[in-house]
């Protein structure tokens, strides 16, 4: 069954895959962070809150707002950037040199890190490999991505 993106189902599927692959994530170590995902188009936004604890993604939920003083950071980007990243992960079995989370966020060209406290923001770096491998799990999913248009925008159904 195809899993639509963006959707809560998509992140729940990643959460389930992480639990199934506990040995892989146990090898990477404790991951204790709560961060938001914000996917935007010109007329709407999808927002999810992911909570990681010990070796697993303990909770994923859809939220209407983020309180940056209560969470570590928010990964924000337009839908086209997210779709391109997931499409790349699907093609390569993981992000290639141009689509790793750090590369996409470093200068905020494609994805942006929003935060209140830089020490909490630094958790994105402290748990970088765990977070990257969490998203790389998407290569095992049959994701229904919105269609790209010639102009680089995306069309959601």
């Amino acid at each position, binding site marked *: 069954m195809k899993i639509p993106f963006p959707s809560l189902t998509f992140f729940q599927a990643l959460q389930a895959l992480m639990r199934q692959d506990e040995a892989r994530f146990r090898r990477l*170590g404790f991951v204790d962070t709560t961060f938001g995902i914000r996917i935007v188009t010109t007329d709407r936004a999808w927002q999810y809150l992911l909570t990681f604890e*010990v070796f697993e993604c303990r909770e994923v939920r859809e939220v209407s707002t983020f309180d940056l003083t209560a969470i570590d950071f928010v990964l924000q980007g337009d839908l086209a950037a997210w779709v391109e990243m997931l499409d790349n992960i699907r093609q390569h079995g993981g992000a290639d*040199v141009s689509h790793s989370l750090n590369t996409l966020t470093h200068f905020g060209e494609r994805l942006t890190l929003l935060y209140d406290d830089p*020490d909490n923001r630094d958790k994105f770096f402290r748990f970088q490999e765990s977070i990257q491998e969490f998203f790389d799990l998407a290569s095992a999913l049959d994701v229904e991505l919105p269609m790209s248009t010639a102009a680089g925008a995306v069309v959601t159904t």
Partner: protein
Amino acid sequence: MAYLSTIDFFTDRNFLDRWQRTLRGELDLGWLHAKTEKLAATPENPRRGLTFRDLDQGAYGFTALPEVVRQNRSLAPRGAELPEGLPDLQPAVSHKSEVWAYNTEGYYEEAMTRQWNATLDVPWHELAKYELPDDISRAYAQLLTFLTEVEMIATDVPAQWLGRLNNEFTEVKNFMATQVMDEARHSEVFRKRALTTGYGLMKASPQNEWSLKLIRDSDSFAEMSLALHLVGEGFVLTLFRFSEYISPTELDKKIFRLVMQDEARHVGYGVQHLKWVMRHFPEKREVIHQHLDEVENMVFGGGYAVEVTEPFIILAGKGTKKENIEHGTRITALFQMKQIEEYFERLDKCGLQERRQRSKLHNALELTRASLQEAGVIP
């Protein structure tokens, strides 16, 4: 040997008599009645295991540690009975505020579970599938030479302080021990990667070595931590992120993600240490500023190290043609501004907001920003 026993045990009558009695089964058993707290610690979260935080109870805990540790100057573990006759090891640091950080115990547990192995966790066998242009390979080998150099001092510095801290600071010492291992592994992985490029190691960096010497020769642990954890590793963390950004292969991306994780943990300790000091000893503010003046001077002087800046320009611009160099120069300038901005952001959150006003480095940042805006590089 700096210390020799004051007793020759092979001829001391008291010792030999005591030894004989023990051999005959005449036990003392005084240790059975050690005057210590009796407790049975349990994990708060079984999935996380038994952590230092679970042991934070009574005299065994870190919460009860006084600011000045006067009673124990020996190797006795915190919470043990201190009988007469323990040696004074003359620890150089017995003030909690000089070493303590919020969440020290958490950083230690995180470090222990997130250890990785430079020999096995990097897919070295995949190198065969990459063929990099000559100029990229040379620039990368030079960058790796610099990084190996940096990580060697980052290994030495915490190691040289370990034995000088009072043994009551268990969690800090353990965290420092993980940092020594982390930095040794970084030095290892960069050396290994350099020796796979076909160019081996390139040229050492005198200006950077002088900066590293400033960190190594700090007069106190607090000075060292400020220079190493907060300034040095803060700048290197941004540098690792940038190196991941410009990495020529997926294998290199992985290396930089792995080292980035460790570095961010060390920076976290430095930030939380400065926060602790500012909250508990605000009178140290001026001393901190004066030390930052010196450290920032060295940071700015790093601009002399063309053997570091130029490889970044070539790697960021993906070559040595004129257009590559122009592009690489712009991106590298943005990276250097980002390094400085992130440093001041951290200081802001530690309560040193006024640092921006008095810092010559911040002034240099503003001048750089104005010049890049004038050149149309940034909006």
